């Protein structure tokens, strides 16, 4: 073991491992009846890493041009050993990733974990959701199949409604006035370089804030502790919390691999601009609540409504004076529940009654 000791000492002398280990050894996580939600954030982080690894693997064979993209994905799915598995994991994990970010965000919202001093954690978190949706939107086009082509046409079209720079933004996104191979190459660049860079930076900040401030304890639990009704319980991060994390990650990977094996992700048919759109075209599920809303309200109202709601959502912690003072805030709970129900209901309608 002296070899290990020597190695440890070599590194310790240079990067002060003692200090880091002491921090990890003393790091604790609050333990109470709502602490299950604490694991969702770690799960998102894990899925992001899965996406990075499978994404790099896909890059070994993927070709980002209109002529070769579809065929290269077909090649991955049929010729490359375990290619079907790698691509299916990338697709399933992507959807689970976005789904769990929503769960993470709403659990944080309903427990008012964004309250002072964690406003910056909240803001970086919402930015990460937007970046993840950007990943989803850009990645969807990359296999260059018919549905992706249509969805990208519809999705990028909204850019033209941006005040003053709409036309410019549309051309910037599409690499021209129409969705073409130029769009594919551009989206590829966004998907594998721009978004990963931005996400790494914002994620780094997000994790830094979480480490500096520790986990937030819900107000209701804080109140019980203050009134002496419940003791303040904590568990060590190492190894207790991490073991539970790893258990969750293992189960998640098992589920994703199971789904990938039983139902490998479909490729669809190659994009053809001469083909008319089939009925009931839908965007990816996490855009459906917005897409469905636009069937009921004028386009401008819907688009600007969501834009304003999005900005308000990011800034919400700054206006929740009650929670910031440590008092329960029913109004914000109602807003949170309404947002969840609204999104769930419109998504369901979008899937169950596509013609409505």
């Amino acid at each position: 073991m002296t070899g290990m000791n020597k190695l440890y000492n070599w590194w310790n002398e240079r990067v002060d491992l003692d200090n880091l280990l002491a921090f990890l050894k003393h790091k604790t996580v609050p333990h109470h009846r709502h602490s299950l939600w604490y694991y969702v954030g770690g799960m998102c982080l894990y899925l992001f890493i899965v996406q990075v690894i499978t994404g790099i693997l896909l890059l070994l064979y993927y070709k980002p041009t209109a002529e070769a993209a579809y065929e290269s994905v077909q090649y991955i799915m049929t010729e490359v050993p375990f290619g079907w598995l790698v691509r299916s994991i990338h697709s399933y994990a992507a959807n689970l990733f976005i789904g769990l970010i929503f769960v993470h965000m709403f659990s944080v919202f309903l427990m008012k974990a964004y309250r002072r001093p964690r406003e910056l954690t909240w803001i970086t978190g919402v930015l990460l959701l937007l970046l993840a949706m950007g990943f989803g939107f850009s990645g969807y086009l990359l296999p260059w199949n018919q549905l992706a082509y249509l969805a990208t046409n519809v999705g990028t079209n909204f850019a033209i409604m941006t005040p003053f720079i709409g036309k410019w933004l549309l051309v910037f996104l599409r690499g021209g006035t129409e969705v073409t191979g130029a769009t594919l190459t551009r989206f590829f660049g966004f998907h594998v370089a721009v978004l990963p860079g931005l996400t790494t930076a914002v994620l780094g900040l997000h994790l830094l804030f979480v480490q500096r401030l520790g986990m937030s304890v819900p107000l209701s639990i804080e109140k019980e502790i203050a009134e002496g009704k419940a003791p303040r319980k904590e568990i060590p991060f190492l190894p207790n919390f991490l073991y539970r994390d790893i258990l969750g990650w293992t189960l998640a990977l098992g589920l994703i691999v199971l789904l990938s094996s039983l139902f490998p992700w479909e490729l669809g048919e190659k994009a053809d601009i001469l083909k008319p759109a089939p009925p009931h075209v839908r965007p990816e599920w996490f855009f459906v609540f917005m897409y469905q809303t636009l069937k009921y309200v004028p386009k401008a109202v819907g688009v600007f409504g969501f834009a304003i709601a999005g900005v308000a959502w990011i800034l919400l912690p700054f206006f929740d004076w009650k929670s910031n003072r440590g008092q329960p805030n029913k109004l914000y709970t109602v807003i949170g529940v309404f947002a969840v129900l609204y999104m769930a209901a419109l998504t369901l309608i979008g899937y169950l009654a596509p013609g409505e």
Partner: protein
Amino acid sequence: MGKEKIPRREAINYLLGAGIGALGVATLIPIVKYIIPPAASGAGTSSVSAAKVGELGPNQGKIFKFGNSPGILILKPGGDPSSALGYVAFTAVCTHLNCTVQYREDLKEIWCACHNGHFDLNGKVMSGPPPTPLQEFRVAIKGDEIFVSSEET
């Protein structure tokens, strides 16, 4: 032996370690297999049409695609363009560091520009760093096409 009791904690740690290790191996195997590409089409090429009869004059060379790598076809100085015996063909991949070689009409030699390697028209190293001769290909003429194949000459 046999009667010794393993402490419960030790046994659990062992199982946990073995489980995580097995999971790691089960993750790595597909990744390693994925990284190794399936045999590419063209890699097993053994015969290609390198040029047309009359395309090369005496003391001229041409680089052609042999599968996924370049080959070099040369009509020897004073060689007969319509006879297979007038030609020689080699892989154009230098045996030193895989640069593509070229025919130097002025020297009547095959030359690698990367590190000034010289080969004669039998593929033998005349000077420079290449360690071994260029692999020679067989030349045959069918109709007006010059075929090059990698079978033993």
